[in-house]
């Protein structure tokens, strides 16, 4: 049982860490928000593995529902859904080249 838990934790930890790195590296902000929700997903599974069902439930409710709700609303309100990460200063220029650079 303990061996099995180690393998599960290894997979989940790698998933969480790679999603966390992706949050910082990906250009598109919506993809970053999706990766942040994946981070909290991995955390909820890890909390279940650590015998903390209360904390896992809070993390599931907040991370999956409310946090991505707030961040998605923010992306929409800030107009970031069409802007690449680096070129924040002129959204007009980016709108034209968005077809190629969209990622």
């Amino acid at each position, binding site marked *: 049982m303990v061996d099995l838990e180690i393998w599960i*934790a290894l997979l989940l930890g790698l998933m*969480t860490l790679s999603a966390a790195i992706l949050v910082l590296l990906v250009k598109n902000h919506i993809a970053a*928000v999706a990766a*942040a929700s994946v981070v909290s997903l991995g955390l909820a599974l890890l909390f279940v593995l650590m015998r903390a069902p209360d*904390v896992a439930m809070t993390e599931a409710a907040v991370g999956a529902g409310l946090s991505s709700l707030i961040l998605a609303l*923010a992306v929409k309100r800030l107009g*970031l859904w069409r802007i690449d*990460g680096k070129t924040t200063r002129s959204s007009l220029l980016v709108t034209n080249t968005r077809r190629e650079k969209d990622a």
Partner: protein
Amino acid sequence: MIPGFTLELILYSTALGLVSIGLAGLVLSHHLFRIVLALVIAEAGANLMLVLAGYRWDAVAPILTTLGEQPQMVDPVPQAMVLTAIVIGVGIQALAVSILIRIRQRYHTLDRNEVAELMDAEIAATAGTARDVSQEAPLGERPIPPITDDAVQVRGGRS
């Protein structure tokens, strides 16, 4: 299984990695929204570390299912703390997002350096002084100038 390669080590390095990644993003990012996301990651790592502090490898969840003889349970105190910390974290996150919306409305940019520069220029214009060109060589002593009429208007007017 390799000796020393335990569940606690994996969990601890995950928490450590999350905190380090969050802090690195906090210092390295140039976009304010990305900084908020980095803050969320660092907070998640800190929560994981707190719950790990109360973890026992041979225990069950801190909920009684039978009366009488109880099996060994994990520590409930860190879990109770993390429970409220997560909910407060989402409140803080919403506050940060609303501040970002205000910054965007006023300065029309979210780049960290540009916002700082615009803010500096605005403060200098309001106070009626010249701006500091660099942090290393400030302009020297500046007497506080009398507040002129147009400065008052600048202060009260644009919103």
